[in-house]
């Protein structure tokens, strides 16, 4: 539409037919603007009114031109509605392209692992993979357990008691001698090594986080204790992680 074109003077409008369709504000510039410029409460009224005014518009384009101002038209409504539908459509198309990057079914299918803890001798640890992530299973010595329990009340960044650290996913207490934690420093994900640091537990060499014998963060930049993955004992010493 040509800006500044006056309504009702059809003389040289090449699209003469169009102007009779009750789209007075349309000719005054971009049609969507009156509706969008209005305050939210007014907007709704505009939209509702659009339906009613359409008949009048059809009847008399001249009258329409007078009331045009910020008055909405049915066309405004159609533009807004089409725009809204379009946005929903774009979102609906975009979503599969975004979500395809989420963990796939086969990756998720690996989310449970069974392991017999009896294979781990006392004072040793093994590393197994759960969901592609390394997990420490440590068979703690009585001294390690005692050291962890002794510190239960100490001031810590992420306070947890030793009993909390071996709890099963179903809330049942676990076995104090088997500590199951993700082998991934809660700072930036390096694998900590056992036997370093001043708390008898793990040291992450990347930026110096120190974990104790219950894998609780005791010093250094890591914000949390090593994560305990959800696990339950299925029978005796067999544990199901995930």
């Amino acid at each position, binding site marked *: 539409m040509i800006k500044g074109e006056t309504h009702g003077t059809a003389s040289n409008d090449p699209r003469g037919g169009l102007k009779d369709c009750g789209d007075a504000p349309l000719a005054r510039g971009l049609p969507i603007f009156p509706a969008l410029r209005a305050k939210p409460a007014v907007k709704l009224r505009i939209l509702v009114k659009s339906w009613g005014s359409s008949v009048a518009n059809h009847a008399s384009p001249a009258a329409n031109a007078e009331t045009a101002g910020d008055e909405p038209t049915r066309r405004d409504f159609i533009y807004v509605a089409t725009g809204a539908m379009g946005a929903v459509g774009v979102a609906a198309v975009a979503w599969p392209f975004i979500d395809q990057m989420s963990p796939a079914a086969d*990756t998720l299918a690996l989310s449970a692992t069974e392991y017999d803890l009896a294979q781990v001798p006392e004072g040793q640890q093994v590393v197994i993979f759960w*969901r592609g992530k390394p997990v420490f299973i440590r068979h703690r010595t009585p001294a390690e357990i005692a050291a962890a329990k002794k510190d239960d009340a100490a001031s810590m960044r992420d306070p947890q008691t030793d009993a909390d650290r071996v709890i099963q996913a179903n809330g049942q207490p676990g076995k104090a001698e088997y500590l199951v934690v993700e082998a991934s420093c809660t700072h*930036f994900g390096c694998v900590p090594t056992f036997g370093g640091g001043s708390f008898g537990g793990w040291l992450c060499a990347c930026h110096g986080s120190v974990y104790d014998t219950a894998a609780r963060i005791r010093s250094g930049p890591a914000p949390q204790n090593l994560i305990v993955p959800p696990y339950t004992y299925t029978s005796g010493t067999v544990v199901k992680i995930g």
Partner: protein
Amino acid sequence: MSGPSTYVPKSGFEQWLDKRLPVMRLMHDSFIDYPTPRNLNYFWTFGAILTLCLITQVVTGIVLAMHYTASVDLAFDSVQRIKRDVPFGWLIQSIHATGASMFFLAVYIHMFRGLYYGSYKAPRELLWIIGVAIYLAMIITAFLGYVLPWGQMSFWGATVITNFFTAVPIVGTPIQQWLMGGFAIDNPTLTRFFSLHYLLPFVIFGLVILHVWALHVTGQNNPDGVEVKDKADTVPFTPYATVKDLVSVAFFVLMFAAFVFFLPDALGHPDNYIPADPLKTPPHIVPEWYLLPFYAILRAIDFSIGPISAKLGGLLLMVGAIGVLVALPWLDTSKVRSMRYRPLARIFFVIFVVVCGALGWAGGQSPDKVIWQSSSFRIEGQATGPGGAAQTYVGAGVTLEAAEKAFEKEKAKVVAAGAAPQSSTVTTPFQFKVTQFSQLLTLYYFAFFLLILPILGLRETPGRVPETIAKAIGAKHAAAAAPDREA
């Protein structure tokens, strides 16, 4: 800024084409008759060098992609195969890997140039911001590319970087898993990183077109920072800029080739020749040299500020370090564009460049490394001698361990002499570590943009800015004639 087109189609074909698709006219007006300020120095040739770098990366990258296999079991070997078995693979792989470093070297010079000569100021704000977007896209591209050879640094670098996201509360971990396509860096991560590494250079290409377009609308800035006023201030792009660019490119390519042929591994990390092992973290994870300053900023924050953990704080500052560049056109309050006429700002600028270099150094060091300490560690022990007399003995050393060792030796001597050790006290010296150094440097980095530039612009007394480029050059020639007068 380019005036009316001066293109005159010569042959019949050119006339025919010009009426249908005036590409020749566009080229002529952009790269032949385009008026460039006549005082440009060699710092203005880095745009051409950067274009060359981008083309080099795309061409060598497309070749590499023909031979590379994006799979955790095959990626490492496929890169080795490119280096050993593929005809000229050694050359093309080396150009691509070295090219990334050359690209960043050039972009840093290009950016410092803009900073010094005030090229980000009105009317070139958007030109500068598009540049920052290109830089950001380059960082992401280089990070993705570095993961592809699937060495130890590839894997652990990717682990550390994707772990950044977990610093964001609530949505952090889901975003991290979405990026990795799983719960750890694995095959899904590698394949998507390859796909995106292939895509992003073309996004950069598009941004470069916008960058050059914006440049041709506002015209080039110049070392004197005064706008072009008339024809006396300019020379045509060809031959003046073209030839200057070519000279610069020749020297750059020479240096590039020196690295490719004689030092292909100098800029990489030896650990990346070890295949990725998710169970073994290398003792010291570092990014490539061009990202070290940001790594230093990330690690400088080892304390939490209220609800913001150290991890999130570091991440925010690192992002902020680039974000502040976007705001720069509005932070610098000075009306004078070029620091050539801002003697005070020039000093702060030089310090800023040194600080950026020092941040790079700090990013490559272990954060606990002690740079300076006030004295040695001292352990003083008290003992009661055989006659009941009090006795003291001391062990000292540069580190606590050394002091302990010396102390134990002294103690053994005292005990051998029949005394009974009682108690001991340790004196710890003040230690200035890499972390503290990084904190100071980070402080200056942000202060430069958020305090120094805004305040300086209002308070400093700038030098006398020449009215026109032609006059600036005239003054220079006069100074050359009378060498004791400053230009």
